[in-house]
């Protein structure tokens, strides 16, 4: 089985986001970029499928820091790594890159395309259904378990409230991974150093083929604070206040 897994670099979710001067984008100059968390799980699921039944895993990364994350992917078990060029200092729109991923899936004779179910920059639509529709392959998003039995996939999808639905489908297919069957593995420094020699292929993007979805007029920060009370940053005074708040509401003890 040939698996293509997509790795998108996005602004660090824990970092502070500031608006750029144009008011339509975020200021990327001092941002840290990291692998989209869901794509990390997609990579892990790809490697788990390879370990379970044999597969060739090709990782394609897009965005700032792609080379670094591709070395990590190689250290974790990806067989081939490719950096997809992207416009500098622009958000990674899944609608824009879908045609490139679909073309690469064909070029690599992929049986299965894996990507994270969502990313923080997919406001114009999610990658798995775009790629699935472009290839006219079946797609399922929100998976938390993928088992391959030859060309038949058994896929479990989270539906909320703990309800999980299991589907069966044949490859070729596109899956949007929510959670890998096991938590993403840790790679040692020595494995990373070894993988740093892995040659990184280059791919140039295809035209998206879609009309622009919408124009972002302005970005803004949500109104902060709501109506809540700020108890401040001193742990001792916060603890004192919380004890009296909980006591007043009869919530301190059973």
């Amino acid at each position, binding site marked *: 089985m040939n698996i293509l897994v997509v790795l998108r670099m996005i602004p660090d979710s824990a970092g502070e986001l500031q608006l750029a001067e144009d008011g339509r984008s975020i200021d990327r100059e001092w941002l840290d970029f990291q692998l989209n968390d869901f794509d990390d*799980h997609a990579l892990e699921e790809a490697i788990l499928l390879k370990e379970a039944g044999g597969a060739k895993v090709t990782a394609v990364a897009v965005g700032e820091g792609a080379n670094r994350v591709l070395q990590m992917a190689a250290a974790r078990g990806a067989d081939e790594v490719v950096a997809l060029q992207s416009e500098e200092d622009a958000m990674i729109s899944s609608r824009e890159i879908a045609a490139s991923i679909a073309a690469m899936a064909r070029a690599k004779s992929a049986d299965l395309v894996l990507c994270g179910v969502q990313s923080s920059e997919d*406001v114009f639509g*999610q990658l798995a259904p775009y790629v699935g529709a472009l290839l006219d392959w079946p797609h399922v998003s929100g998976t938390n378990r993928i088992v391959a039995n030859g060309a038949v996939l058994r896929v479990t999808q989270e539906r909320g409230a703990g309800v999980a639905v299991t*589907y069966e489908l044949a490859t070729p297919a596109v899956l949007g991974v929510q959670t890998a069957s096991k938590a993403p593995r840790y790679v040692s420094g020595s494995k990373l150093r070894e993988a740093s020699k892995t040659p990184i292929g280059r791919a140039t993007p295809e035209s998206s083929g879609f009309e622009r979805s919408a124009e972002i007029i302005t970005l803004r*920060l*949500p109104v902060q*604070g*709501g109506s809540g009370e700020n*108890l401040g940053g001193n742990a001792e005074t916060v603890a004192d206040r919380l004890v009296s708040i909980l006591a007043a509401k009869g919530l301190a003890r059973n």
Partner: protein
Amino acid sequence: MKLIACTEGHSSKIEAFSLEMIAAARSIAQAGDEVVAFFAGRDAEGASASFGAADRLIVARATKSDVIPAETYALLLRDVITAESPGLVLVPYSANGLDVAADIAARTGWPLVSYVNEIKRHGESLTIVAQMYGGKILAECEMQLPAILMINPGAFAEAAPGAITAVSVQTIDADPALTSGKVKMVAIDVPDYADVDLTTAERIVCVGRGIGDEASIDLARNLATMLGAEIAGSRPVVDNGWLPKLRQVGKSGQKVKPKLYLALGVSGAPEHLEGMSQADLIIAVNTDPKAPIFNVAHYGATCDLFDLVANLSDRLRAGSGR
């Protein structure tokens, strides 16, 4: 213009957000417009009995599967779009909607904006407010009709439930599409709540990514015990295997409404807020003063969560005489 509100259900249950989709469509419908609800599933009667706020209901009735795979849902919806030529299609941000919205966008070529909170209409164009970056940024977008929107649950108040008149209901047989579909449902697993049911818990201590590592969860667990609370986690904590899935709060976990919700190191992504923003008392601790959790918290603190847990535990221990 026709506006199609996509609704959902599985087994014998209509999803509550379905009525929000009808309300969202209704909120921008103008005189002469028609709000058409589309439902695919087993519970065709439930749809007819609930979606009276729509002008018309198209039901794709399934008898062969408790869940309509998104692939089949999208295929049925495409036929409806072809037949109706709507100006706008509203899809819920749900497990199903995540597969349906972009599939339809790719196959029609229509514009799509996801994670939508607000819609304003100006003739043939829309102004949309959508969430990006885990709710840390709001994007105001302009788009042309026809278009597809994926709407956040909770962004619109539910339309009043009520029966729709029989003459306004059009029924399609979904079974042929289910039979020929490439994606087959083979099982539904509903969790066993014997161990823990967060939805009935009166007090919850929830840990987020800020807890740092698995070992630190014990500190929060001890505090929860002192408060008579259940321990819970946000998605990253559960994905890391630090807490079992049944203890996850949020979109893909449980929706909870306890008397006390103490959030430790939870940033408050929209998917998390969807599961807990209705709690009676929300106390949030996060070192990032811009964390979205503070937008729903009644009390917020920006101190180090470990310092707070230690101080609070000391006081509760002293107060109980232990």
